[in-house]
């Protein structure tokens, strides 16, 4: 089998995550979808590293994980505070950015 299939898989997963981000209103679910996208990217990175026969791809994936962790922590904290103030976790309710 051709390891490119992993890439196809990651592409599909990424797309799924993207659609989720665009479609779901629940902030937490949106976050999960973002995680999904990150994981898809990681898969691609790992596959590349295998193809090229060096570990840089894995290092990069590693960093992605770390950053993702940090991002999740902060993001969830933000969600919690928002929920406290507005009693809702819907991203559409926080639409104060318009003029």
């Amino acid at each position: 089998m051709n390891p490119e299939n992993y890439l196809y898989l990651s592409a599909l997963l990424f797309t799924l995550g993207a659609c989720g981000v665009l479609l779901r209103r629940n902030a937490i679910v949106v976050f999960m979808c973002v995680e999904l996208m990150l994981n898809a990217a990681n898969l691609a990175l790992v596959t590349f590293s295998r193809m090229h026969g060096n570990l840089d791809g894995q290092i990069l994936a590693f960093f992605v994980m770390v950053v993702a962790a940090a991002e999740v922590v902060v993001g969830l904290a933000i969600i919690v505070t928002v929920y406290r103030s507005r009693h809702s976790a819907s991203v559409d309710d926080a639409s104060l950015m318009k003029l």
Partner: protein
Amino acid sequence: MSALASLAAETSTSTGEAAQFWLLGPLALLGGLGTVLMRRAVYSALCLAGTMVILALFYLSNGAYFLGMVQIVVYTGAVMMLFLFVLMLVGVSSTDSLKETLKGQQWLAAACGLGLGLLLVSGIGQASTGSFTGLGQANSGGNVQGLASLLFTRYVVAFEVTGVLLTIAAVGATLLTHRERLERAKSQREQAEARVRENKHLPPLPAPGVYARHNAVDLPGLLPDGSPSELTVNPTLRARGQMREVHRDALAAVRALEQRTNRHHGRPENPGIPAGQTNGNGANGNGADGVNGKGLAGSSAADGPAGAADEAATDAEEARK
């Protein structure tokens, strides 16, 4: 593990791996779909966890043993748990509808997402990653060692920076979620006095209604006229939208009971207003005088229809004396 190692070392993928891929790949996709489409956040969280596990397996089979482990431990372990905790805070079982509110949003989203996907796929198709060198000698000294040597030599700066980043993230999270208590907590007495001053809920809040057949604190108690009282349910449950409907026939039963008592006392059918409703706050259970005995009956509907009936009758007689 060794088997995996050997298989990752080769310059071409074995049939076993192919089988694994064709078996788990679709599952991973299913998990992704579930994450996107499940109406309850908990379910999508579980689907996501599944997908992540599968991805961990793929990492392993791609010779990224360290990452595979990290994936399982950090992601499926820590991050997903964090998600679940937050879900607890926000309301586990709250479902949100998938009905789109923004005009044309879903079409645009579908177009962009799918378009992006197709483009990526076609891009990969075009990208001729012809030669394929396995991780044979890269992992020769062991995958972890290899990573470590890279991480602490070439990527050391980035490593340090990410460390700092994590620290900052932790601090930031605590800062965001932490609430400073500015004034002393009110004692119970002070709260009571405050209630008196505002003149509402002088007595403690009424208890939720509990039927014999179903024991739950998420059922609202009934007012004398049978309408459910929001007050009786824990505000958290209310906020999560987990307050349960009072069953219809329960209300019907109350009606029937009243009519029967009327007939029993030979009163005219269906007097305009049941006496107890003259002051609705009888539901709050204050005032032991007979006039709003019905109020008591209404609030303590938990005793079941019959009991309620007797009490109602006696109270009515008292009222007449």
